[in-house]
């Protein structure tokens, strides 16, 4: 890039090294709130600019908190293993927009063959279980018990 001097055109492009991960909230959030896991060094201003400039998402408010990763687990050498800390950002969208985290694993429609195969398999397992159990008239008493 040509050398930048004050007043000149800004030809440089700065690409942030941050990443933002949209996550499904653990507790139900209001409709206009999106939950992100962001890098620990990001600030509220950074998050706002990131979403507005790169993704054109109108941001009304941002609140952040740092989630401490626990240090209780132990490995085979009895050393404590720490889960990493991460920062969570709650972003409230502007202009009345709402967001609902999508269902990433929807139920797939099964065709007739797979459905009939599943039914057959379930019935077979049921019959096997019935054979394993003893006579229902004995009320759960094993068959070696007797005179």
């Amino acid at each position, binding site marked *: 890039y040509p050398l930048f001097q004050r007043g000149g055109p800004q030809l440089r492009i700065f690409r942030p090294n941050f990443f933002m991960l949209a996550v499904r909230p653990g507790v*139900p*959030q*209001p409709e*206009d709130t999106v939950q992100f896991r962001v890098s620990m060094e990001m600030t509220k201003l950074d998050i706002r600019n990131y979403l507005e400039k790169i993704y054109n998402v109108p941001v*009304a*408010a941002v609140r952040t908190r740092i989630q401490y990763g626990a240090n209780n687990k132990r490995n085979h050498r009895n050393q404590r293993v720490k889960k990493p800390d991460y920062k969570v950002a709650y972003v*409230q969208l*502007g202009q009345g927009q709402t967001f609902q985290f999508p269902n990433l694993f929807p139920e797939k429609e099964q065709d007739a063959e797979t459905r009939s195969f599943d039914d057959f398999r379930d019935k077979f397992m049921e019959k096997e279980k019935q054979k394993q159990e003893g006579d229902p008239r004995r009320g759960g008493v094993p068959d070696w018990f007797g005179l």
Partner: protein
Amino acid sequence: MASLRVRQLLAPSRRWFSETVSGTPSPPDSPLYPPVVASITAKSKAAKSRRLQRFNQRVHAAATVEEKLRLYGKLQRPKYTVYPQTFALNADRWYRSFTKTVLVPGMPPRAAAAKAPVAAAGATPEAGRAPEPGVEAPGAAEAPGAAETPEPAVGAVPYLDIGELRSLACDALLQESFYQNKKRPFLYRDQDHTPGPFLTQLVSTLAASLSGRNPLLAASSLDLNPEVSYYWHHGEEVVVHGHRKGRVDPVRFQIDDNPHLQIRVPKQLPEVVPLESDLGDVPVIDHKPSKLPLFKKQYENKVFIGSKVADPCCYGHTQFHLLPDKLKRERFIRERLEDQIEVVYRSNGIASLFAWTAAQAMYQGFWSEADVTRPFVSQAVVTDGKYFAFFCYQLNTLALTAETIKNNPRKNICWSTDSKPLYDVVEDGNVKGFNDEVLLQLVRFLLNRPKEL
């Protein structure tokens, strides 16, 4: 002999088996065994309800209002602090759901206001005062010059001189912002520098000049920077963590408010609509209040109207709120949140007035188990120095706890207006673009009084 003894033995047993009442003395009036009720100390729902009932009986049986308030707020637990002046988005919807308030845009039609007709230019204010539900006449900003001369008094009742009141307001404004030499305001203290003193001066002079017309104002008490607090329960939640984990607790709220000015009166303002009226819907929000965001703290559960219970001026008339620097219009416009500007005014009006009217009701001995028998009405003006928004609140119910709200059809009502500027700009000793409507509404608020007076 043996047969005699047998007959003696058989005779009482026959009486014991038979149902007919014989000559034996009747059983004593008090039951032989104590009533079979749930335990008080067990960890069960029946025991909890019995403890609650005993607590309610204790509060009902309290001799004085101070004792009732002391028992009501005795148990301290973490509670949500509700701030009337908040930057949270869409706070007024949340606050309406916490306080079961219906928001009605526009001021209520006041039939009683015809007592003090105002001589302003043309008949527009009179038409606006006639029972016209809701919005004030938008085009009533007549040329100020036309209203300079007071209308010739028809009859013996002296008409209100709008010119005199306007000059009072302009004097106060110019004194604070132009004539008085003030240093530059400290950082983020703009509101205390000019709009604060202007508001105090305006209200005290207007109240003094209108007290001749409104005897209630003459007997009123003007508080400077008073405290208003209220504590209530609404809804239920499960305790998340701690030694009380898993128990069902009521959701506790506390409002601690400091209005800029407050007028308290010895007589109550008249009701605007009947107690059981239904003017709209209360928003229902399923999420926890902490998503607003609202935070929990544990401290004294205070219920206070600005003076203690023994004060004769125990009813509220008007509150005046000044918005802080953090919530000024320019900041919202810069962050492209224009719709939140009105939300700030509304949330301030609803929360502050609910706290004030509910605390007034508690001072009269009502509480969530003993609901109000007459509506409590108060007014408020929220301003940031230039823009004024007017609110009128009618408290119809205090029963907001999980049990008492079940069969309670009553809702609290809040009438509100949008914020309008009082003036456009102050330059060179002149106030440009003075808005008479806002002043009129302010005067109407101050002149509001019960029908007997």
